[in-house]
């Protein structure tokens, strides 16, 4: 019993390698995650400038050799702030996706497997959550519990888990109706054994693939939340917030807002490309072609 079959994994790898775009995406993702780890471990030690220190002699400088991304209205080096902000986005994405995966996923899996009232109830509840546009519900929750990084993650969680519940339930249902489940019953296995041997391994794979693809959505929505002031609060170098602070200076100092926005774009795109490739690679129907 294993999650990954070697041949399967090899084919997946071959496909991913051949798909240059998702390979590029994967490379950027890897670089970004490495950066996150380094920054988290070393703090501002390796950065060219202190991201928090203001320097009123050097405000609104355009990008140059000393300041790759220029400086902001308070004279802070934007490049250093963008780098220092990298771990914040990663933190939001991983916390939200992993908790949604664990909570929503297990709820959905059990509901799908058990069926009946439990399933019906969960479906109706997720119906309600999914009726809201994700960003709007997150906004409402965030404003109610107050702005801030932790609170914006809580707000995103409220919005995010139902998707995972839905997907897990769908997978569980498909597995429940499969013949190998019937065979497992016929073999006289206990329910616990069935869940451990068959249900979990078969549900986890599609959920993990979806989660990879979903990271980009979380980062995007999270950055909008912080753009409208609900995320990390100044002076923390959060990318969405930096865009917001810079937009008043757009006509004179475009780099203040456009460059952090581009950073978000690049990371989101990279996760998307990588996730897309991963999904195609794990879907034998698409791969065979």
């Amino acid at each position, binding site marked *: 019993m294993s999650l990954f079959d070697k041949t399967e994994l090899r*084919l997946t790898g*071959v*496909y991913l390698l051949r798909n240059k775009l998702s390979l590029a995406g994967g490379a950027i993702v890897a670089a970004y995650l490495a950066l996150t780890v380094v920054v988290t471990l070393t703090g501002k030690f390796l950065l060219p400038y202190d991201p928090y220190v203001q320097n009123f002699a050097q405000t609104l400088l355009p990008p140059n050799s000393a300041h790759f991304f220029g400086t902001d209205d308070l004279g802070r080096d934007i490049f250093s702030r963008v780098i220092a902000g990298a771990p914040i986005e990663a933190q939001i994405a991983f916390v939200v996706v992993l908790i949604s995966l664990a909570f929503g996923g297990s709820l959905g899996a059990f509901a799908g497997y058990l069926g009946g009232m439990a399933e019906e109830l969960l479906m109706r509840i997720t119906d309600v959550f999914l009726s809201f546009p994700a960003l709007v519900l997150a906004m409402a929750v965030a404003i109610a519990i107050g702005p801030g990084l932790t609170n914006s993650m809580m707000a995103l969680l409220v919005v995010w888990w139902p998707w995972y519940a839905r997907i897990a339930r769908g997978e569980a249902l498909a597995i429940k109706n499969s013949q190998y489940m019937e065979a497992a019953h016929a073999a006289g296995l206990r329910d616990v054994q069935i869940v451990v041997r068959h249900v979990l391994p078969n549900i986890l794979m599609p959920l993990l693939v979806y989660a990879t693809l979903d990271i980009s959505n979380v980062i995007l929505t999270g950055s909008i939340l912080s753009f409208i002031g609900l995320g990390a609060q100044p002076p923390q170098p959060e990318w969405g917030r930096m865009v917001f602070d810079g937009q008043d200076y757009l006509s004179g100092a475009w780099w203040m807002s456009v460059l952090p926005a581009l950073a978000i774009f690049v990371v989101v795109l990279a996760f998307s490309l990588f996730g897309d490739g991963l999904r195609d690679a794990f879907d034998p129907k698409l*791969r*065979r*072609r």
Partner: protein
Amino acid sequence: MSEPLLSIENVRLEFNTEQGTVHALRGVDLSVGKNEVVGLVGESGCGKTVLGLAVLGLNPMPPARLLDGSQILFQGRNLAELTPHELALVRGTGISMIFQEPATSLNPVFTIGDQISESIRLRIQRQRNEDKSTPSSSEIDEQVYEALRLVRIADPERIARRYPHELSGGMKQRAMIAMAMAAKPSLLIADEPTTALDVTIQAQILRLMRDLMNEVKTSILFITHDLGVIAEIADRVAVMYAGHIVEEAPVGQLFAEPLHPYTQGLLASLPRLSDLDREIKQLPGSVPDAINPPSGCSFHPRCEFAREECRTESPKLKELKAGHKVACYLY
């Protein structure tokens, strides 16, 4: 048989896949005469469906490609060399095709009448050179009902207004046949048309196709894996194995005196109601991999008579008796 309606010569077709090149057709020769039902029989993966689709250019290309020298001669033209658009003009009115799954082969969002009228309009459009008048929609409706009556549907007005999902499997296959026949093709390619149906419905459809043959004089290339169905409907039979035709004979002769060891093995492997005491024989091994087909005769790994030459050289199809051809070194 003076001049065949369809003549397939040395057709070779390959697919490119992740795992390698699939050699689906490896030099197929086959002809269908006027007013003839040719049965094409073989197990899954032998290339019989690919061949049917290749005649109409319906294999997705790429990944499929016909190799140079492939000839599909129909009404004096080589279909293998036509542009996609020219080929489209041959389909329907020249050669039409019906498929295995009537449930998925009809478009779910159009009524049966709509889908049949398309074939009728197409035919009229292509005949318009001689006849300038365009038929009114009520005339077309009448022709739709006519087409449905042809396939023994008793209340065509009602059925024409139905959507595919509102009909049973047997009715859907009748509608498919009506649609294909409405264009009055000279050749109908039927790819496993009864495989998805129950045996009593299969009997109805086979009987219908036999009757249609006599009424409207269409030739049929009937593709199936079921030797029983072949015995029921075909005039002449071609047996396919791993992308080759290995034997071809008039139906009576093939069943009475099969020559190729594969045909013999296949016939011996079927349980028969008339002879339940006989222990069925089994062919050893399994169908060869189309990516790495065996050298020489594709059947030699499973053949009890395999000799040295079978392993190296692929036997050619040769005529032993009148109309009975076989590709085997035993003869």
